[in-house]
């Protein structure tokens, strides 16, 4: 009898250990705060946010499906808004805010990048439809490094990253279209951290790492482990806690990953309630470690704290 009890105890212990390990692999993140910001209506439509960026003084910049640039204050109140120059062909999908307050937008369907001042006055465009340096096919994501060099990712058969100065002077381009290493299928979001560019390779369901000089580093994943599997990762951001956050359009969830590629936890699944996302598109993080998710299908911006 003692043997039986001992065996049962051992089995339960092993099972508990395995369960704990599995739990650690996909640890559920818990949102301590969950706030919903609504976008103002545009006539008879209720647009939804696609891309987000953190601005100065706690402001959050958003692009929406009405082709508007919206500047929210830290409390979710719209302080300023303006329309893109042209929206009949399509709406923009990438935004970043420079330190001097200028807003740079990837005008995706016009194959160009547009600069506005902080008040929404148009300053300049760069690029046109094409595959040469400084030209674009569907520029869709943009980020900046510590020197405010800009990195623009594009898709549409010429999938690559182009690097510009903050004034729009072309510096470099890297990556190509495909499924192999160093290749993308719809790179839709990117983030810079400590000399590295992290690129969400949406259709290939992975995150690629490049040096900011354009040298391929590898795939995001723990050493000796297969790369982390994502489901249409659309955007990525680096928090002040030195971890990466990836929003997944297909899975409707937020993943937290260490810089060395360990999956630290996940939050959410497809849905419309609290703790759920529906085709989340954009992500940004403010200085207070509040994460902002453009929860596109749910017509909301979610401000959350982990």
């Amino acid at each position, binding site marked *: 009898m003692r043997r039986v009890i001992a065996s049962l105890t051992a089995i339960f212990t092993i099972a508990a250990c395995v369960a704990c390990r599995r739990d650690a692999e996909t640890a559920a993140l818990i949102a301590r705060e969950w706030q919903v910001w609504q976008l103002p*209506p545009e006539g008879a439509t*209720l647009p*939804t946010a696609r891309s987000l960026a953190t601005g100065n003084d706690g402001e959050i910049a958003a692009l929406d499906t009405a082709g508007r640039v919206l500047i929210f204050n830290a409390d979710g109140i719209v302080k300023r808004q303006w329309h893109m120059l042209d929206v009949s062909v*399509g709406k923009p999908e990438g935004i970043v805010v420079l330190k001097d307050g200028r807003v740079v937008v990837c005008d995706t369907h016009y194959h160009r990048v547009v600069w506005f001042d902080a008040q929404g006055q148009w300053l300049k465009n760069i690029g046109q439809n094409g595959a040469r340096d400084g030209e674009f096919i569907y520029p869709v994501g943009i980020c900046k490094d510590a020197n405010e060099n800009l990195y623009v990712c594009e898709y549409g058969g010429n999938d690559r990253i182009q690097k510009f100065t903050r004034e729009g002077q072309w510096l470099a381009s890297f990556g190509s279209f495909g499924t192999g290493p160093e290749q993308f299928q*719809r790179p839709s979001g990117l983030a810079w951290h400590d000399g590295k560019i992290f690129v969400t390779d*949406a259709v290939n*369901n992975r995150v690629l790492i490049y040096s900011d000089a354009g040298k391929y580093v590898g795939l995001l994943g723990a050493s000796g482990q297969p790369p982390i599997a994502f489901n249409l990762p659309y955007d990525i951001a680096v928090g002040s806690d030195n971890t990466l956050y990836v929003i997944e359009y*297909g899975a409707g969830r937020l993943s937290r990953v260490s810089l060395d590629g360990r999956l630290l936890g996940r939050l959410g699944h497809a849905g*419309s309630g609290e703790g759920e996302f529906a*085709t989340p598109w954009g992500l940004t993080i403010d200085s207070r470690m509040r994460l902002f998710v453009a929860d596109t299908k749910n017509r909301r911006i979610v401000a959350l704290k982990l």
Partner: protein
Amino acid sequence: MKLLHPLRTLFPPARRALTLPALLPLLLFLLFFVVFCVGLEWRGVLRFSYRPAFALIAVLPWVWWMHQAIGSGLSRGHAVAALCVRFALIGGFILLLAEPRAVRRSDALSVVYALDMSDSMGEKIRDQSLSWIMQTVTTKPPKDEAGLVVFGRDAAVELPPRASFPFEAINSRVAKDGTDLGKALSLAAAMLPEGNEGRVVLITDGNETEGNVLAQLDELKSRGVAVDVLPIGFAYEKEVWIERLDLPRVVKMGETYEATVLLSSLAKSHGTLRLQENGKTIFEKEIEFDAGKSRFTLPLYLREPGYYEYAATIEMPPGEDGWKENNLAIGDIYLRGEGKVLLVTDARGDARDWEPLVEALKAAERIVQVRTAFEFPRDSASLRPYDLVVFANAPADAFDVVQLQALRDAVYNHGTGFLMLGGPQSFGPGGYHRSAVEEALPVTMDVQQKKVLPKGALAIVLHTCEFAEGNTWAKRIAKEAIRVLGAQDEVGLIAFDWGKGNNNGYNWIFPLTPAGQYEKLVPLINAAEPGDMPDFQTPMQLGLTGLQKSDAAMKHMIVISDGDPSPPTPALLQQFIAAKVSVSMVAINPHGGQDISIMQSVAQQTGGRYYFPQDPSQLPSIFIKEAKTLKRSMLQNKVFTPEVEFPSPVLKGIEQLPALRGYVLTTVKPRASTILRVPPSKDEPGQLDPVLATWRFGLGTTAAWTSDLGPAWAQDWLGWEKYRAFVKQLTQEISRVEQANDLRLITFATGGSGTVTVEDFAKDEAFLEITARVAGPRGETLDVPLRQIGPRRYQGQFPLSGKGRYQVIAAAAGRGGDNQIPEQAIGGFAVPYSPEYLNFRSNPILLKQIAERTGGRLLSATTTDIYHPPRQPRESTRPVFDWFLIVLACLLPLDVAVRRVQLDWSLIRGWFSRGTKKESTETMGALLQCKQQVKNALTLPRTERPPPPSSAATPPPLKPPSKPTKPEPDDAAQSTTERLLARKRKRKDDPQR
């Protein structure tokens, strides 16, 4: 004593004196149970739906009494535990019978907007209303819910109430030519979740044309649904409308008649009155009129027989009229003449293909009109001048659904003959499968007999969410494409549905499935909601994998998209080329026409076609055309001489038939007659393909000639001397034969109803039983019995179902005996505009009533916060019967176990302590000793029940009986039952004992 016996059985005398401690478990449990139940109710945790069940608490004292009286033979502590478990069991049972329901309390508010989409609202007001909805929705607290119902004559749910409000555009289609407020409120209220406080926000002008909303308000009030109303106000001071266009009922060719226009106006005004005949203006005049009704007469002159449609319009100066839609009245005159034949061809066809047939028809003394499919009439009344309609290799996608339905109705209701000739654009290859025309034909396009017919496989990728009503179109075109396919052809649909599946959200709505299962596929298509596709690669790969697994001979893929998903890789396109799977790309709303390069390239590389329709209405014909590419195998190009299957007047005087060089595979319907057929081949002796089949369809006759009558397949027939005779006899067989009768049908619309009047002009007067069958504009049919209202005059009325054309066929029985075919008269009228356009001001009084009687508020356009009225938390309950049942199921074995199972705690302790083998052995020894003692005791005669052991672990030795009893003779030989019965008898004999 006998009466007391059952009572004593129920309440046996106590075996020992009752003390307060013995009563304590009962009192404590009763107290606990009552407090527990009352507490649950009071705290709102549970609600008990059937409280009379608590009367069963009365059972508890009895159980306690039985426990005390009979005793359980257990130690005191054990007995108390057993009693408590029994009490718990009964308590659980009582709770179960009381039908417990768990309570959920919510202070969230659910709001359903009910937006009036009827014509009287107008586009501009609808947009302003939607803007107001969007403004108010953005003020919604996150936990509150919002939904949207749209309504007109009927109502539909656009968005069910949810915390998010993912409004894109109004996709629901409702009939706009009426307003049914009751239906709208009923649907909106039904959408409100029971657990939340619910409100309906009604946005309307209050002009109710259908139903009675006031009758429903009490029900809404009783359900606690408040209706807030946003009244849309308007009032026209100047309004002009045409009430009626009266045309002569009986006309003759070459004579002059008058048409009368009845015009109404709210004020004195002037305008231009026009009358159009078949689209051409025949009268135009500046007129002046006063407020009220005015009558104007216009001249008519009919030069030749035919069908004449007249439209009277009044054009008003700017600012002199409110609704422009009601400035129209329509009427028609049918001047019977010699029947014509309408030959319908494809606009891209070659006239040489049908010229021999036209000549043959003319030789048969028929008036022939050749029209392209584009010119084909759109209503069955316009086909009345034609005795026969012939489709000469005109494909289905050259018509629209309305045209094909008009043909079907003309055959069924008016008796028009119909002949379809074979060819590459006819029957199945022409896309007529599952169409209204197939319904009328004596053959189906499903080829069931030909087992070896190579089948096709079609995968459709839908990315349609990015244009207005895109997903509604997606469902329609998917069904159109499947409809065209043969029963054995396979079809599958792929779409992006976020959060589902293992292929990045791309899933088969249904995998490749035989198109014969169309009826099963339709609900799946209707339930699909294609999402925004990020790439072409994954869905195309998914589709290719599916197509590669199919054994179809022809494989094809259609992708419809706005063109901006990430392109497929060159490697994938190579796979398509290697697998011989062509891909056709349909670019719809491709971001200003710029995002087309990817789609063009894919179509070009894989051998498919590229389409760039300017309007979604072109999509069905594109999808039918694409699906038809899989149907080429139904064309049989072989030389054969048709065999006579069944004698017919068509073959009168014809003994030998020339050879034909091809035909289209079809299957004869069960009730149809096959006159000519293809000789069965040696390989497939059972296959009987029809060449000529006919049948009756409604009042008309239709025929399918699966070969052609031109130079392509009937080359040898053109020089045949009996060719013209054959064509003449065929047209005679199927053409309508008009029979003169003495009935005159008069139909017209007045207000919301239509009137049918039949006048009997027969020589001999007879009482007739007349029924009018009315076919409405939405395909609905209604039988209206007519009653006699005067000598030879019969009348009936029916409710109108909105704008459109109403066909009426009156059938009269009662003259000429029972076997006489009923006389028929055909007529109809058109309602030119919706009754909504007869509302010249809104109805705020009704709306105020709605708000007041339901406890709602009257809102204004400046009200933007509707989500903060005083709230009352709403309770909702759900049954938790199952949970209590589980608890009861656990208590039941526990109740038995407590009484029957004796646990040796020292043994259990021994399992978890070291060196206890000796103790265990000692315990086992003690048990064996106990067992022996019990055995010895059982062998002794017993006079009374032994007292309960004081301890299970150390049972006391059995005492000898206090009074020796006389041993029973043969006691050992008696069974236990016999011994017990004997003892019972003994007790009865000695009640003092």
